[in-house]
């Protein structure tokens, strides 16, 4: 999955599942404020990330995610890590 495909998929589920206006999703916008996330929404974000990208987000990971760009970069990094991970024997 390319970086562009990751962005497209994230934006797709934010519009479809979180009902965010597509025009509000810009790289420098604040993720939490734009999505109006409360503690329950974070749980749903974890679920949707797991079903789309196959990894589990932990709460601490969100500490350094402020903008949509941070979020895209974070997901990209996790997807790359997953690709290069050595399977346990």
């Amino acid at each position, binding site marked *: 999955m390319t970086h562009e495909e990751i962005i497209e998929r994230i934006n797709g589920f934010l519009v479809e*599942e*979180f*009902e965010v206006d597509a025009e509000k999703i810009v790289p420098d916008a604040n993720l939490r404020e734009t999505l109006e996330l409360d503690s*329950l*929404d974070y*749980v*749903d974000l*974890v*679920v949707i990330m*797991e079903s789309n990208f196959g990894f*589990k987000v932990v709460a601490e990971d969100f500490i350094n995610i402020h903008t949509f760009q941070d979020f895209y970069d974070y997901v990209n990094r996790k997807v790359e890590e997953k690709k290069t991970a050595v399977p346990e024997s």
Partner: protein
Amino acid sequence: MNNRVVITGLGIWSCLGTNLDEVKNSLYTGKSGIGMDPERKLWGYRSGLTGIVEKPQLKGILDRRARIGLSEEAEYAYMATLEAMKNAKMEIDWVEKNEVGILYGNDSSAKAVSEAIDTIRLKKDTTLLGSGSIFQSMNCTVTMNLSTIFKLKGINFTISAACASGSHALGLGYLMIKWGLQKHIICGGAQEVNPFAFGSFDGLSAFSIREDEPMKASRPFDKNRDGLIPSGGAATLILESYESAMERGAPILAEVIGYGFSSNGEHISNSSVDGQIRSLNMALNDANLKAADVDYINAHATSTPGGDYAEAQAIDAVFGGCKTMVSSTKSMTGHECWMAGASEIVYSTLMMQNNFIAPNINFEEGDDASSKLNIVTKTTEKNIDVFLSNSFGFGGTNSSLIIKKIK
């Protein structure tokens, strides 16, 4: 305090239709809402018969946060309540500024619970259940969600009383308003319709297996009945004190005048004629009526051999001399279980408003108990001033409600 209690709004979502007009027409024409669900046979059901209930499309009506907490039955209850509040002229702005309560009958949320357990087993990670699971899974899923969506500030809880849940919800709402504890309560009953909800019931061989003739399978009181057909949806009634309804300028549709209840204190699943008679007599006493004053009885009769037989005896014992007209709308709807006690008040009130009695379809020949009753087999034009509705549930919980026309 002894306030008069009136019904100012009705809402329905069932296999007979998804609004009052559709349901009234189905009742008048004696239309069955029963069909087959092939998925149930794949799950090992003895019977694939079920009420066919449309699923509401809530995207665009409710926001995401409100939607994801709604179980299947809470979705039905939302739609029924929306209709009831609209025709009670109860606007959300007014509701926010007043003490409106909710008492709803519901006794399972099996689909939500099953799906959550499947996820835990598969993922071994509870976070992956998502935030909505708990609000869908609890028995009070309807009241906790609707009280939030409609900004309710009055009494707020769920009544779980098996197949009498909806009826007791109305009965308790009636008492609270009668005694001056509340002025306005959203009452009703909801029932999920899915293979997870009814497996254990099917396992008791309680369901009809007349699968080759789904619309003829539900035949309350008929000699050749062979079991009930599960169904569901939701029904909402707005109960208010007469004074508050007048003050609001709300349409007054009917008056609740009697509530009787009892517990059999006997077998967990078998009916008791004695328990039902006590419930009927208590309702008549509460309404200060004689048996002859009741124009129509919407029986609990679900189409099971034992249950219908007991109810026919109980009705005959209390109303036998009056030849009161009797039908079971479950002949068309199947058994709407937790919802039935509320939906059957909606169905009967529609009949009262439109001067007819809906037929007990599929009744061809009575047994030695039901042949003593005056069972209505064809749609009958009739002025109904007073009707009674029975609901009986597992554990021997009985409820009878009496409703009167407002003149």
